[in-house]
């Protein structure tokens, strides 16, 4: 053995990072891609010993040992006493007994990505007299949400993009048909005919240009199924623009390319499904075959300029290029000159077509009791807070149908009562209209502009209240992207579509036909306990409404938010400001986001005596005061006992009541000022949005951190869409999630959630992906694991390390070879590393002894990974 002083220059440390790809699929049939805690196959090792303090199976282990010992002692005793030598039966039994010993729990433990939400959970509980109740309890997801919101978001704010409890105000209008949605839903903008000059908002009486971005996401269900023509815009007897399939088919025989159909004047009253593209009737035109591609964002302009522009030539312009042209040798395609009032193409038999239909095709005769104006009757004015056109009647038209629902996502709908040239279209198709540009384009006869943007303003209307099952409604305006009463009460989701469909050109709101979610319909009570979200899945209207607005992934377009400015602009709006919803977590104005804090605008809790007046838009400053009462329950009983329970019991159960749907309406013990019950808020004083979905990636799957830009989170066949909507989310490498479904450029700045790479936490904040991951979800990502490598070069120089301190050591000739020149040698078997006190701190054994002569010099490279 020899000691050699080690030189630090031979001590090298380096680090490399490994990126292990992980994927995990969770669905009803189980989990694929989980990571096991233990490397052992369950059952190969079984626990004979147990720790009474920690083992769950010690009773069965005790029983097993008793059985084993009894048989074993019987065998041993018989052998000892020479009673028998045949123990085949006993040993056979002992072998089989091995299989009955408990497996190690750790060998069965595996990890995978888990989803959690801050919803109520429904469970059963016994009251003091032994009666059983279905009760709802707050899930741990709420506490976990607030831990993430108040810690991780704060920690990474300014480091990650959009690291606020807010999401980007960039959406699409989503139309699709399915078995669980209303296929006759439509968005109807009022367009009363002027009594002065018989003009109308959305009816061109001369040149026109329709512009919009469209993504045909959906195709037919099977090779033989028909893809119904879907109407984008329809103004009865004036125009209809519809989406048709092209001739192209994918490998499965399903349509994968599309074209557009334009019907004008009289032909606009023919159902687009009945039009044969190879034999077009008069005033009907189509774009080039396969001009639109499935799952691609396309900018479309449909225009006609009358006599003044290329001698009555019109065209379909797709992505800035003319797709096809048509000629209409007429001065007007909708207005029948010399009529003095517009009454449809046949001048006299029909009523004024006082509405623009978006997303479906109106089919009806538009006369008398079936007049279109009756969609804006007096009751609609009262219940939906909309403009009244039919002032004498309070009912809808009696005979009509909407059977051509669009199957596509659209946004940036514009309608100009003028002809726009290609240069202008190309220049303006990539950006939204904001501030000055809106004014400029308005002067160009902009007559419709639906981005769609979230606006704090919405019609004062009947809106779904706390009793989801009874479709109880209250009259109010809504100022949030979703119905906060339904959300913070029985935890139901009801997207406020009204807050997204403002026509900025006319500053009006449409009627959401079969989309309001406030119309009572029969929902079959579930057989098992269910919360309000699960119950609402049984409502086709609710499903249609909740998926009508989706996050926008069109990266070819940049929205402009100046339109949202209203009144006095303050960089730090107050709670009462029109801009209070457009703030980040610092309370700073940012029109591109929709804040998810203070959703109740300072609602007081049951423990508070007055409304909150602070202007902190991030977190309310609740004052927890001693209760002085009395607070009465809905039944007029003193609620002090409930309140005490609320204050002392962190898991406070609330009994649901109701005879046929016991899990839906809440028997509210804390009615104050006739306010609906807001249990989630009452429990925690937490006003932040609960319409979020969170995912936890276990650290065992990613190591040090999730590698940025590698996360893909998706769900095919979103719950509530009848299997039609697929959603994929990706991370942008800077902590923000964006929607990534389109095959064209993606809108990476449109944040729908966040990922915290170092913690494996994923948060989908947007409420527009309801139930995301509840049916199934798949994730894939790369982990990032640092491995540190220390390389130590131990030098055994010439003329050193030539002898052994082993007492049996003899100087021998290394070999019998004739050319051997050395007369001594040692075998090197081990290299040890010592500290300055000669304590062994490292040891390396050679795989085989190494013969070292005095003239030899060896360098041993020791490598340590950690």
């Amino acid at each position, binding site marked *: 053995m020899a000691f050699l002083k080690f030189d630090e220059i031979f001590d090298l440390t380096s680090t490399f990072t490994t990126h292990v790809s992980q994927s995990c699929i969770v669905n009803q049939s189980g989990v694929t891609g989980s990571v096991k805690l233990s490397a052992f*196959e369950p059952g190969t090792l079984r626990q004979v010993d147990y720790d009474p303090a920690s083992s769950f199976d010690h009773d069965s282990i005790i029983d097993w040992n008793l059985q084993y010992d009894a048989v074993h002692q019987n065998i041993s005793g018989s052998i000892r006493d020479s009673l028998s030598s045949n123990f085949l039966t006993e*040993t*056979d039994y002992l072998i089989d007994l091995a299989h009955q010993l408990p497996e190690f729990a750790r060998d069965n433990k595996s990890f995978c990505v888990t989803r959690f939400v801050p919803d109520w959970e429904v469970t059963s509980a016994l009251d003091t007299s032994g009666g059983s109740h279905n009760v709802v309890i707050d899930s741990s997801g709420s506490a976990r949400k607030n831990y993430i919101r108040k810690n991780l978001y704060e920690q990474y704010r300014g480091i990650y993009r959009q690291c606020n409890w807010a999401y980007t105000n960039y959406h699409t209008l989503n139309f699709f048909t399915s078995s669980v949605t209303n296929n006759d839903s439509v968005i109807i903008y009022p367009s009363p005919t002027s009594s002065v000059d018989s003009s109308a908002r959305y009816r061109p009486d001369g040149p026109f240009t329709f512009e919009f971005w469209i993504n045909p996401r959906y195709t037919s269900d099977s090779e033989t199924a028909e893809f119904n023509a879907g109407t984008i815009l329809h103004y009865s007897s004036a125009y209809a623009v519809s989406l048709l399939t092209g001739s192209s088919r994918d490998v499965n025989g399903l349509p994968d390319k599309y074209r557009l159909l334009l019907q004008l004047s009289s032909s606009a009253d023919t159902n687009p499904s009945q039009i044969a593209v190879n034999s077009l009737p008069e005033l009907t035109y189509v774009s080039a075959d396969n001009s639109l591609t499935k799952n691609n964002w396309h900018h479309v302009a449909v225009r006609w300029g009358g006599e003044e522009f290329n001698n009555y030539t019109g065209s379909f312009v797709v992505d800035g290029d003319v797709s096809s042209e048509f000629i209409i040798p007429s001065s007007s395609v909708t207005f029948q000159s010399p009529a003095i009032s517009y009454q449809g193409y046949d001048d006299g038999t029909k009523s004024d077509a006082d509405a623009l239909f978006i997303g479906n095709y109106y089919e009806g005769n538009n006369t008398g009791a079936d007049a279109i104006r009756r969609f804006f009757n007096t009751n609609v004015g009262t219940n939906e807070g909309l403009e009244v056109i039919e002032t004498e009647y309070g009912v809808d038209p009696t005979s009509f149908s909407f059977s051509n629902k669009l199957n596509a996502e659209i946004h940036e709908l514009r309608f100009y009562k003028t002809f726009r040239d290609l240069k202008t279209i190309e220049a303006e198709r990539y950006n939204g209209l904001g501030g000055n540009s809106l004014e400029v384009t308005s002067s160009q006869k902009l007559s419709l502009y639906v981005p769609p943007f979230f606006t704090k303003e919405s019609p004062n209307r009947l809106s779904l209240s706390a009793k989801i099952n009874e479709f109880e409604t209250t009259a109010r305006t809504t100022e949030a992207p979703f119905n906060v009463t339904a959300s913070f009460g029985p935890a139901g989701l009801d997207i406020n579509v009204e807050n997204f469909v403002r026509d900025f050109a006319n500053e009006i709101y449409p009627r959401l036909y079969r989309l309001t979610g406030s119309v009572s319909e029969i929902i079959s009570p579930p057989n098992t306990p269910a919360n309000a979200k699960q119950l609402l899945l049984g409502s086709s209207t609710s499903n249609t409404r909740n998926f009508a607005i989706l996050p926008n992934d069109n990266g070819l377009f940049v929205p402009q938010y100046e339109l949202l400015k209203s009144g006095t602009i303050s960089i730090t709006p107050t709670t009462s400001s029109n801009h209070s919803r457009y703030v980040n977590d610092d309370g700073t104005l940012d029109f591109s986001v929709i804040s998810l804090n203070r959703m109740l605008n300072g609602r007081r809790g049951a423990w508070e005596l007055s409304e909150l007046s602070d202007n902190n838009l991030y977190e309310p400053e609740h004052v927890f005061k001693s209760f002085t009462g009395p607070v009465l329950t809905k039944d007029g009983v003193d609620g002090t006992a409930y309140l005490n329970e609320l204050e002392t019991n962190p898991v406070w159960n609330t009994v649901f009541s109701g005879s046929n749907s016991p899990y839906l309406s809440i028997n509210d013990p804390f009615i104050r000022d006739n306010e609906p019950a807001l249990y989630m808020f009452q429990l925690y004083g937490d006003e932040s949005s609960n319409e979020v979905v969170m995912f936890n990636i276990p650290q065992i799957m990613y190591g040090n951190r999730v590698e940025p830009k590698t996360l893909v989170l998706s769900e095919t066949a979103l719950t509530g869409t009848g299997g039609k909507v697929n959603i994929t989310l990706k991370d942008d490498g800077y902590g923000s999630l964006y929607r990534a479904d389109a095959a064209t450029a993606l809108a990476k700045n449109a944040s729908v959630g966040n990922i915290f790479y170092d913690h494996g936490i994923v948060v989908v904040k947007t409420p527009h992906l309801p139930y995301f991951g509840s049916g199934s979800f798949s994730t894939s990502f790369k982990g990032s694991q640092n491995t540190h490598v220390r390389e130590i070069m131990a030098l055994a120089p010439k003329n050193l390390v030539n002898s052994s301190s082993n007492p049996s050591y003899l100087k021998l000739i290394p070999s019998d070879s004739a050319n051997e020149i050395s007369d001594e040698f040692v075998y090197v078997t081990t290299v040890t590393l010592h500290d300055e006190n000669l304590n062994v701190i490292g040891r390396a054994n050679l795989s085989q002894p190494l013969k070292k002569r005095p003239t030899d010099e060896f360098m041993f490279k020791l490598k340590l990974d950690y």
Partner: protein
Amino acid sequence: MATFKEIKSSDITKKTSFLNQLVDVIQDDVSGSATRKKYEVFVTGGVGPGVTSSMFQTVFDQDFSLQTANAIFDMTVGIRSGSALVATASTGEDAAGKLLFPSQSIMMREKIDNYSQMAQILLGERTESFYAPWKSTDATNEIDNALFINFRRLFSRDQIKRETFAMRFYETGTLDGSPDDAALFPGVKQAYTGSNLNITSVSGAAVYTDVGSAANRLQSFAGDVGNIVDSANTSRNVGLMFYDLGIAVLDMEKVIMTDQHMSGIIGAMSSVTDADAAAGETVMGSASGNANATFFPDFVVSASIDDIVDHIASTRFSSGSITAMTFQNVTQINSSLIFCKANPNEFNYSSNPTFTDSDGQVVVVNPGSEEKPFSFVTTVGLYDANNRLLAVAKLSRPVEKNDTRDLTVRVRLDF
């Protein structure tokens, strides 16, 4: 971190304990090809395309291609150099003393080397023979043809526990309907005609176990050893179990019915292709390839190690989800228990800067009152004589320490 206190030798106690786990090897793991890995490192030359084989095979607890698979044991066969079988089969030695064998035999020298290697490890001398029972000198107890089962340390740990080993093994292979079998076993009819090399045994199960070894604790060069016996007749010794190394040595001539007719295709030094076998193969037990072949000596001599282990693993342990073999392992745990004692007047302060205010006064809960300081103990650090941190123990939750209570934290170090 607050205060140092010297640990005295009286504060340290040492303890040794033993942990047992049961290992449960199911039949499918042994018989299945996905869980049994081969290492084809051997190849013949000269005649035909050559025969490839492993020197041993490894049985895993799951598909061995999976990252999480664990090797349970290795299995191979060996033949004693001085056995009558070798003397009969060998055609002599070359000038260097290498044994020579005819081309009809396969891997004879490798089988001999396997035996010698195991003898070197377990008996201390490569020329020694295994005897069952241990220390017998009776030639009838000498193991000439051995089946070695080497349990991996991951499962055998520090030792296999005495009297816990048991193995369900099928002495009889599937009868292949040959006239020989009919003559040998007239009472057995299995209605099967054809190759029996890889047909799972359905009858003749024996249980080989080490019962009785606790009462008679034998020692060897390789540590503790015990006899493996036939549980149907414990006076019939069939092998040895070396507990410390986790190796079982079984006498193939006792655990397997040696004169049973064997038939089927095995690898061979052959360049001929015919209707039944390709080049590099031969049909054992057929008219063209020793019609009267039996397990011993024909199969043991003529088959490669892979062919022999394949046959034993895939047929003699049967196939199913029940236990093929089981034992309990022993893990020795040495523990140091260090009692870290804090007297009432010790460890009541913290050096955390927030423990005192800007004036150096201890921060109290109620300002103005004269509360006595207290601390929350969260961590115990163990230092050497030069105040270098050696180990850290974390409490599951902070424990309050004040001048009215003493506190003893028991730090346990297992290794």
